[in-house]
């Protein structure tokens, strides 16, 4: 604990984005809280090296919320777990840089990085059924990290635990401390895991599909709770979800991931107003709409994501893309910046531009995309 003072951002190295006096006013919010640069996480599997995260970069400002969307297996969880160095045993040590508050966590020895987990970065997991230890009382699980990281006494930790449970709106917090996880409902358990994550006042909260395992009505409560706590504690948050509705309602910026890469990234409003990547477009099209008549067939994305042990050298979405042209099958698009405030996407024929419209028209005339995907005449974009 003695070195905890050095972990505080007093000596944060000035970044290239020119914050002139970083050590005078570190809270001035201009340097990014988290910067991920070209992160690769690969796993050793019997079929070969699986490239779960393949060159992801993004920045997250102090107090902002980044939503990461994408289908199962697109590398969302692997990405945040690599940020926290929580990857499974068969992972090859991630390459790239994770710069938190001006310090490169990937170059830090593990014992030092450990002091960031909890007090600086905390995580809420998907399934509250398994993310609490079934044989330990709620109180013990809540107070452990506070006593360790903050050096609180048993008594102080307990009173703070009651306060935390109160903050996450659990009724009768005092009684809950002596209960076991199985005595709580699913929503209540997720509130407890949020309280545990908040225990050391982290500056960044990573929520890995925090509502997937919960009932729809409880989902909304938990998301509202996260949003209000984020505001109250001035935390930054990374919210992982496959629900674009959640992204729209609760995030400032959004990154859409596909096959281990970010395919589109923009501020959330821009993303929904000016979709550029065909994958994002297809995801949006596959959301059921209330205003449509019942029994309307949902728009599905045909095909499957590529095998990540041998991803295609060209565009990874080409095989499933309605807009795919010959170029998409040979060249890999890079993440290009569009004019409007940091809107980046990875596509040669972006939706909503002249190129994209022409590409779709051409494919519809041909009846199939360049990758051989049959197209019906219905136009979605």
């Amino acid at each position, binding site marked *: 604990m003695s070195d905890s003072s050095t972990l505080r951002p007093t000596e944060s190295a000035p970044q290239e984005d020119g914050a002139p006096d970083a050590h005078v006013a570190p809270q001035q919010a201009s340097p990014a809280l988290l910067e991920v640069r070209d992160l690769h996480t690969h796993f050793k599997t019997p079929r070969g090296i699986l490239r779960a995260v393949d060159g992801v970069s993004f920045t997250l400002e102090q107090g902002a919320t980044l939503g990461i969307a994408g289908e199962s297996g697109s590398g969302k969880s692997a990405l945040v777990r690599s940020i926290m160095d*929580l990857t499974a045993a068969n992972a090859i040590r991630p390459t790239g840089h994770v710069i938190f508050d001006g310090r490169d966590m990937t170059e830090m020895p593990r014992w030092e990085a450990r002091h960031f*987990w*909890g007090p600086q970065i905390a995580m809420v997991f998907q399934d509250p059924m398994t993310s*609490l*230890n079934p*044989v330990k009382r709620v109180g013990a699980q809540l107070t452990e*990290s506070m006593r*360790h990281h903050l050096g609180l006494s048993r008594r102080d930790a307990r009173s703070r635990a009651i306060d935390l449970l109160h903050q996450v709106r659990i009724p009768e917090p005092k009684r809950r401390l002596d209960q076991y*996880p*199985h005595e709580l409902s699913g929503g209540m358990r997720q509130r407890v895991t949020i309280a545990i994550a908040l225990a050391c006042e982290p500056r960044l909260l990573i929520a890995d599909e925090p509502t997937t395992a919960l009932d729809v009505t409880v989902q909304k409560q938990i998301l509202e709770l996260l949003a209000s706590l984020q505001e109250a504690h001035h935390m930054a948050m990374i919210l992982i979800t496959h629900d674009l509705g959640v992204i729209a309602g609760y995030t400032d910026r959004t990154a859409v991931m596909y096959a281990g890469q970010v395919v589109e990234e923009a501020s959330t409003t821009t993303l929904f107003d000016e979709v550029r990547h065909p994958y994002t477009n297809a995801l949006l099209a596959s959301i059921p709409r209330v205003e449509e008549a019942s029994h309307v067939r949902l728009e599905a994305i045909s095909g499957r994501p590529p095998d990540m042990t041998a991803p295609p050298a060209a565009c990874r979405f080409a095989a499933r893309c309605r807009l795919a042209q010959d170029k998409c099958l040979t060249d890999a698009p890079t993440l290009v910046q569009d004019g409007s405030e940091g809107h980046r996407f990875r596509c040669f024929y972006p939706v909503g531009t002249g190129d994209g419209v022409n590409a779709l028209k051409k494919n519809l005339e041909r009846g199939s995309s360049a990758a051989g995907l049959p197209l019906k005449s219905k136009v979605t974009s």
Partner: protein
Amino acid sequence: MAVSEPTETKPVVQPATIGADVAAGTAAGASDIDAMLPRRRSRLLRFGVPTAVAGIALVVLGAVVMTEGTTWVRLSMIGAGLLAAYIGIDRVAKAVFGATFDTGLWMAAGWLALITLSAAFADLLPLSEHEDVSKTLTVTPMLTPDLLSSHPLGTDSQGLDVLGGVIYGARVSLVVGVGATVLGMVLGAAIGLVAGYLRGIVDAAVGLVGDAMLAFPPLILLLAMVAVLEPSIFNTTIALAILTVPTYIRLTRANTLLFAQREFVLAAKALGAKNRRIIVRELLPNVVLPVVSYGVIVVGALVVAEASLSFLGVGVQRPTPTWGNMIAAAQSRFESDPHLVFIPGACLFLTVYALNRVGESARAVWDPRQREL
């Protein structure tokens, strides 16, 4: 739980589900279970009380009154009496405590309590000399059991008290059985936890050594160890403990694998917990119940193993009495004086049976598969 529900909702099926006991009563009140229960209880009592009394009377007759009779006759009377008493007491207990009362389990627990307490407080009991032959020169050898004399279970060929031997033998059995189990459990669980959590090379090495030990014939391993070490209570305990370690490694490792994948372990890491903390604070509490409940059964197996070693003469040596060496000493006189073999043998049997019985129940209660999270 699930079985009892249909019987409440469909009264017509009840007679069949209640079982043969009440089959006679079905014609009278087929649909009225409430009226049948007290009748069933009185039936149990009417049968149970006389059976229990008759059984106990038979035991007393064989053990206390007929001191002149031949041992075989007395032993069969005691055996038949005990059986009748068990059946009777079972019925009475079911009538008093309800049909789900497990009489056998409570009797097993009672026996374990009796044997443990008498072994613990053996020095305070008014027992005759059981160990030092020089002090029994005046005692008649081969006395037949007479519960009201100073040698309630008789004496052996050297005039040593059999009851004293059995009780001090229980001390050896329990110390070795429990001691070896605890030692093996602590070692095996520690290794299994580390191997199951760390996986990789550690796990492979531990698995290899464990499998090699399990593949080795246990009796030969024991004989080899005992031959190298000096036969004593301590060394027997160590040898038996080493024998149980691989089993415990496997059991703990399997349970650890189950819990190590749960997200609470990841969550602990995400809060900055070190490996040692995760193993001790997160995994151990989850693993301890199934491992300990298995331990009760292992105690039983080790009590038998200790008795076998003593019987073979490589375990605890005379003059310290153990059940095993008492049986070994008396086996040549089995035909004329079978009680000298049967008494320590019965103690051994009852103790191991009781341990298994209690262990099974413990496992049923603590089995992780039945524990809903």
